[in-house]
């Protein structure tokens, strides 16, 4: 079969294909599949399906190296989101996804539709979304665009999440000049479903109706996926029309309507229309089912007149879903969508041809074999070169320039460690009334509605580590997620990853990708913490300058009893403060070295995964047995920063001893991994349990008073720290009246 004449469509040539992102080699590959010159609509379909964003053509060979299985994994990567068993017939469904390029061009809508998209990925599978998280990276705080971007992104995330009624319970925000021209906006959603009510995307049942629901299709977001697959240049602002526009109210209706339909037995398969819209949803449903789909594009609800088949297929209008219904269930389904006042249209049928056939105005605009479109998509084994190792920097090269508390004051009131309250107060973190802990702790804790269980959720990555040593950095990102979940008492279950990197055609960048994957795989294996979903965002470069490699990790764990959740705040005066894990004083790539000595240098801290596991298992046991009263993981900024965070949260001071024989700077500000601070009323019991578990433990000091005192004489008031900690971000956002000192 061929397509009938499309006189209004441009003729397809290699030159035109190149404009749509297909290389000459890819053009030839397309011709090998079609055996004829494709129509313009077909070219558009190849172009988006074979874009980096949809095909993972540069990353696929590497992603296969990640462990994805565990007894509790119900569905790993490949579906809309990952699914894990959380007991009692319930499943947690989650994924993290980037919306980097759109958010840089149009921060409010870019971030808002990022949230909308990830929500759909989760409720498509039958889950009610119960928590949103995010991982944000902005450029230097004094870069002229940074304030505008923060302001728009945060308002966009809040504007969407607050309206749909899903609490935004946490996340992370970093600043680094490498993101000046290419911010990262990674959004994560966690949902809750019954294990016997999980929905997949594989079409089935020849003749079954294919139904379109949600918003009408417009011309917005055409070729968004292709945009996300190229580098930025000076004129990227011109791509603003490719950014979609979100409508959270419609999304809320869509969630409720889909969940209502899912409670019936009407659905065979369901898929959201995300990147590449109707194209990728219909192709994926047909491909996964090994069947064909024929669509009548005249039936697609449209909000603009005169749309071409190409535009309808490539539109990334938001809040739309594609559903294959069981025969005869159309009326039942339509009644539900009518109730929620959403569009509902039967736009096609499942066929046995294995072909995607698109008709409009009585003509055939597309007739493609689905299998090869997916199976024969290009896969590249891009050349890569390993990142050269960095030298270790001895702590003696970075002595304390003054009292430790002055250094602490600068760090805690600086860009990386200052409070993000200005951001998270714009997010409704409590809607649902199941939030046990939101931003400000090591991990968010959200009760599983109607039970005593809770999910713990965190997002983590330390990009400067990944840049200096991708293998260590990749392992550290996974280990830190595992540690943060452990620090609230949860059993870590699985992760989603959002791989944000530069141009994969550069061997140096591909080496960063390969290294991070290697480190992540090692950590996932040792910690039994598999990857169940993820997203890759490449070409995060502007004018040839790449971002720091940023494999953002979203981790999910389970607490059998929400009331067991530990928090970071000191609870009472007179309690022992104990440091769990080994401290050698590694200052390379530490915030201390960068902020105080102006050196972003050296090797990042080694990651001993066996120690990570041993130490974490001990801490989790202590929390579950209520043997500790507070717990905090050690990460950015090191030991003294963690003590200060616990003191500020509890508004209680502490006396900290300096052990002999260790360099003070390394001890207080080094970023050795696999460490926790806990407080206890019975320190000896904790020390004994650590000894039995062969875990290093150090009695560090005692809580109490209103100051933080180090080594007996060097003191600073907790209120003073708090003021510095809270002042920085509001000052930056108010217009740089009080710019960072670094």
């Amino acid at each position: 079969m061929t397509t009938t004449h499309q006189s209004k469509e441009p003729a397809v040539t290699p030159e035109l294909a190149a404009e749509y992102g297909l290389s000459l080699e890819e053009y030839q590959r397309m011709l090998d599949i079609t055996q004829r010159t494709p129509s313009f609509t077909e070219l558009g379909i190849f172009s988006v399906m074979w874009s980096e964003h949809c095909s993972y053509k540069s990353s696929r060979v590497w992603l296969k190296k990640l462990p994805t299985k565990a007894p509790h994994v119900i569905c790993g990567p490949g579906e809309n989101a990952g699914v894990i068993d959380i007991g009692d017939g319930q499943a947690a469904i989650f994924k993290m996804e980037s919306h980097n390029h759109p958010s840089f061009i149009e921060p409010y809508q870019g971030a808002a539709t990022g949230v909308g998209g990830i929500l759909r990925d989760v409720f498509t599978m039958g889950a009610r979304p119960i928590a949103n998280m995010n991982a944000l990276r902005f450029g230097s705080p004094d870069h002229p665009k940074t304030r505008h971007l923060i302001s728009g992104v945060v308002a966009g995330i809040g504007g969407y999440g607050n309206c749909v009624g899903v609490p935004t319970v946490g996340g992370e925000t970093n600043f680094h000049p490498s993101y000046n021209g290419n911010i990262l906006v990674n959004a994560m959603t966690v949902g809750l479903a019954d294990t016997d009510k999980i929905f997949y995307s594989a079409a089935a049942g020849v003749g079954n109706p294919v139904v379109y629901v949600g918003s009408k299709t417009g011309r917005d977001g055409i070729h968004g996926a292709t945009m996300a697959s190229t580098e930025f240049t000076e004129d990227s602002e011109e791509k603003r029309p490719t950014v979609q526009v979100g409508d959270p109210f419609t999304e809320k209706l869509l969630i409720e309507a889909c969940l209502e339909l899912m409670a019936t037995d009407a659905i065979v398969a369901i898929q959201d229309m995300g990147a590449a819209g109707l194209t990728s949803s219909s192709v994926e449903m047909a491909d996964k089912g090994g069947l064909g789909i024929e669509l009548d594009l005249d039936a697609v609800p449209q909000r603009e007149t005169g749309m071409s088949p190409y535009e309808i297929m490539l539109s990334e209008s938001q809040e739309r879903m594609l559903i294959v219904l069981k025969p005869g269930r159309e009326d039942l389904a339509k009644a539900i969508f009518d109730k929620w006042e959403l569009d509902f249209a039967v736009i096609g049928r499942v066929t046995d041809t294995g072909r995607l056939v698109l008709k409009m105005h009585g003509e055939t605009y597309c007739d493609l074999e689905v299998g090869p479109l997916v199976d024969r998509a290009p896969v590249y084994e891009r050349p890569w070169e390993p990142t050269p190792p960095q030298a270790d920097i001895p702590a003696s090269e970075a002595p304390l320039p003054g009292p430790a508390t002055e250094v602490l004051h600068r760090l805690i009131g600086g860009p990386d460690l200052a409070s993000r309250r200005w951001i998270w107060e714009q997010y409704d973190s409590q809607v649902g009334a199941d939030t046990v802990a939101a931003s400000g702790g090591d991990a968010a804790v959200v009760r599983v509605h109607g039970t005593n269980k809770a999910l713990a959720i965190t997002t983590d990555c330390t990009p400067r580590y990944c840049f200096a040593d991708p293998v260590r950095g990749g392992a550290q990102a996974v280990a830190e997620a595992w540690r943060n979940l452990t620090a609230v008492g949860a059993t870590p279950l699985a992760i989603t990853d959002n791989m944000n990197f530069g141009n994969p055609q550069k061997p140096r960048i591909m080496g960063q990708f390969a290294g991070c994957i290697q480190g992540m795989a090692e950590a996932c294996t040792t910690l039994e913490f598999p990857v169940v979903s993820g997203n890759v965002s490449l070409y995060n470069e502007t004018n040839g300058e790449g971002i720091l490699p940023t494999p953002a990790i979203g981790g999910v764990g389970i607490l059998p009893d929400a009331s067991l959740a530990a928090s970071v705040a000191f609870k009472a005066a007179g309690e022992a403060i104990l440091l769990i894990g080994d401290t050698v004083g590694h200052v390379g790539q530490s915030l201390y070295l960068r902020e105080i000595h102006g050196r972003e240098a050296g090797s990042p801290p080694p990651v001993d995964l066996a120690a990570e596991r041993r130490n974490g298992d001990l801490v989790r046991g202590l929390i579950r047995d209520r043997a500790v009263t507070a717990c905090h993981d050690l990460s950015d900024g090191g030991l003294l920063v963690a003590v200060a965070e616990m003191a500020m949260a509890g508004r209680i001071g502490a006396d900290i001893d300096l052990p002999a024989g260790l360099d003070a700077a390394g001890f207080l500000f080094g970023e050795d991994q696999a460490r926790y601070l806990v407080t206890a009323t019975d320190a000896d019991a904790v020390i004994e349990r650590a000894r039995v578990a062969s875990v290093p433990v150090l009695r560090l000091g005692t809580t109490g008073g209103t100051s933080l005192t180090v080594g007996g004489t060097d003191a600073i008031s907790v209120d003073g720290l708090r003021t510095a900690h809270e002042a920085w971000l509001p000052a930056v956002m108010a217009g740089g009246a009080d710019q960072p000192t670094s």
Partner: protein
Amino acid sequence: MKAAVIVFPGSNCDRDVSVALEHATGHKPAMVWHRDSDLPQVDLIVVPGGFSYGDYLRSGAMAAQSPVMREVVARAKSGTRVLGICNGFQILTEAKLLPGALMRNAGLKFLCRTVDLRVENADSAFTAGYAKDQLIRLPVAHHDGNYFADADTLARIEDNGMVAFRYVTPDGAIDASGNPNGSANAVAGLFNEGRTVLGLMPHPERAAEPLHGNTDGKPLLDGLVEALS
């Protein structure tokens, strides 16, 4: 106490308040869809938080015109207790069951935090669980909570003891630092003249059990059960 919760398509605190009411009364409240105009006979009607019809116009403006709200207004006028929380408060002002309006927060941003409040008037079914001048803490989460009324209306509100809760500092003082959204007279919760209708921006249903880390909202619900059973 029998209760009904009004459900607009964009309501998103309907389930939360329903759970809190169930805990307080021992049975589930009736959930009433926005297109229904036959409301069951109940002692309390709750208009919950959320975004009613998206609130792309003015928060609560469209909801106030919906079929179910005509019935809510009629019931309120015949003395049925009506509680509007957050978006519910906005809807009750738009429906003229309460005077004044809720404008965009003075800081122009959505704001989610736990605030300090003072109970101004404990002489109502809604506030009987508290003592006058008691200091409590409740979470707020809104973009449009900046209460406004003209000078005459404010005077009438104050003269008639219509302020239920006021935003205060942790010490109980009324000043700008304790007022999260710029509300006139620091109004956080407002009665009608008969004190049979209450609108408030804070969310008592989010501070109603130990896991919330705060149970200061529970006396409001328990007080209602006590008064209306």
